[in-house]
């Protein structure tokens, strides 16, 4: 290799920009949008083929995708761990509930955007407060957030409805979709569109200087400072974006349950989101999608498995948890890159081998 360096130095040839463009993979960002539209069409068609129960699950997956994708940006890409995203989802859910309580006829898009804004605001405050915390200290602080915030709902029960929470009327499908169109399918559509918009925007960010900078700050803060990156501000920015996603997920979650109640936003929810992004593939948006699918499908599959095997309920109830743990361990041990990393490795195995051959020939 050392010999190759000298050779490279002497040749000093110019590399055409077009090929460099291909190297970084920065293709026109419109592709993200086009891809999302195709996926949306496929899911709309799919939603007509399946039961309303599956549509109900579909909406749940979409909600988790939004929250997990936001967490991917913060934890996976920027390296800031958050055990408090369940609490941030609660902020979004309660914003939605309170808004609908006072203005029942407000357009859903406005409700969702307001929830995003308030949760992003909460993320800003928390991000500024946590900006100096790293690693386990940040985990501890966010865990405290996850534990404390649901308590607020109990403490100010006249405002937040206490243990019972605040009921929400699920959105009803517009009449032009026909009388038989289920509200589950409508909510699935809305959630899927919201998830796709979120993914497109986050993918745009990841491909831009924002993604580069988030990674740079995670990798080496000192070098980032010297490169003119305002490390503190970038870390807060990551928190704000991530919280905005959690707010959107929380709002849709509240519509999906028909309720904003403290029990739904326990520490378990925060942990589930973390598990999802680790299983899916830390730092990858597609990984967040895989992780969310696992999160929703495992309890469902184990439920039917347990009933099929006639397992006693004491075992059946804990089966999903056991399988989560198992999948997580397997993922961490065998696939450090998660599901997405594993798929990529499989797909790239032949190709990278070929490429290595090529490189060796060139430098030799």
């Amino acid at each position, binding site marked *: *290799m*050392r010999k190759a*360096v*000298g050779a*490279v*130095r*002497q*040749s*000093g*040839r*110019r*590399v055409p*920009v077009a090929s*460099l*463009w291909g*190297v*970084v993979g*920065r293709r*026109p*960002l*419109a592709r*993200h*949008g086009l891809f999302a539209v195709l996926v949306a069409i496929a899911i709309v068609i799919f939603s007509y083929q399946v039961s309303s129960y599956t549509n109900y699950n579909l909406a749940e997956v979409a909600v988790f995708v939004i929250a997990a994708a936001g967490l991917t940006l913060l934890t996976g890409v920027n390296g800031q761990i958050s055990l408090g995203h369940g609490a941030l989802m609660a902020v979004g859910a309660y914003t939605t509930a309170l808004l609908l309580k006072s203005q029942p006829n407000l357009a859903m898009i406005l409700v969702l955007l307001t929830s995003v804004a308030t949760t992003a605001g909460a993320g800003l405050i928390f991000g500024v407060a946590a900006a100096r915390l790293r690693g386990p200290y940040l985990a501890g602080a966010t865990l405290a957030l996850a534990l404390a915030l649901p308590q607020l709902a109990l403490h100010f029960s006249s405002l937040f409805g206490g243990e019972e929470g605040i009921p929400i009327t699920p959105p009803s499908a517009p009449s032009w979709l026909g009388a038989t169109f289920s509200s589950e399918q409508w909510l699935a559509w809305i959630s899927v569109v919201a998830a796709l918009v979120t993914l497109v*925007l986050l993918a*745009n*960010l990841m*491909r*831009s*200087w*924002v993604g*580069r*900078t988030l*990674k*740079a700050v*995670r*990798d*080496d803060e*000192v*070098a*980032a*400072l*010297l*490169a*003119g*990156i*305002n*490390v503190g501000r970038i870390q807060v*920015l990551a928190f704000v974006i991530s919280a905005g996603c959690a707010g959107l997920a929380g709002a849709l979650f509240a519509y999906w349950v028909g309720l904003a109640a403290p029990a739904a936003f326990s520490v378990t929810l925060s942990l589930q989101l973390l598990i999802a992004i680790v299983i899916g593939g830390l730092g990858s948006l597609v990984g967040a999608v895989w992780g969310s699918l696992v999160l929703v499908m495992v309890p469902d599959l184990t439920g039917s498995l347990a009933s099929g095997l006639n397992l006693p309920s004491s075992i059946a109830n804990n089966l999903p948890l056991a399988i989560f743990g198992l999948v997580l361990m397997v993922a961490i041990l065998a696939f450090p890159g998660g599901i997405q990393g594993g798929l990529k490795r499989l797909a790239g195995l032949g190709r990278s081998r070929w490429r290595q051959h090529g490189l060796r020939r*060139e*430098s030799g």
Partner: protein
Amino acid sequence: MARPGDLKVEDITVRFSGLTALDRISLAVEAGEVVGIIGPNGAGKTTLFNVICGFVRPESGQITYRGQPLLGLPTHRLIRLGIARTLQGLGLWPSLTVLENVVAGAARRPSFGAALFGGRSSMRMERQLVQEAGELLSELGIAQAASAYPRSLPYGVQKRVSIARALMARPSLLLLDEPASGLSQREVSELAQLVAGVRQTAALAIVDHNVDLVTEVSDRVVVLNFGRVIASGTPQEIRADPNVAEAYLGEPAVAQGDSGDA
């Protein structure tokens, strides 16, 4: 293009819990000049760079760049003043490719909104930065490494990448921290050529152990020992100075407090 720099360090004193790392240090890097800073381990060379970059707060003293005070300035603002620095440990970002590492060195970027919606201005700027970074890599002879990840590359190439990243911000003053360490004889002489090229657009301050390199490329050499400037002058003067020879070779008696190269 960037104009050459003009750095003034005056009477800087740094103490680490009673240990004097820098003792009323004064030095200047004039416009277009290459200043070498040498000295034995623990002399305070890197500490001096850390003070300039705002990582270490001095007890007293003053630093200005083109008349503007640097002390108290957040580190990330340095690059906009035209000051770039490489690190001893290189500090390349392992999860970014070489090209991305260099592109991220540019202090310019499109707005957040443009990035969020993948706007055209964002794309245009990205393309421009990628082109600039590509040209820089070609000039440094490492264009072939553009798509590789830093850790997969030989150390000498990584070093070049770190210099390319610093140059991407078009600095008017470049601080090189131990650029020759870990390089082969041949790579060191390539480095000397590189410095000669860089000085066309920027002043340089170079901290290194490699006396041969420093005396070859520098206009002026400053020798530190135990936090003090013990000699300063042209490379010829420094080579002839008996104090310098002593600091490097003889009299190992005094060592009452070695600050360690922080």
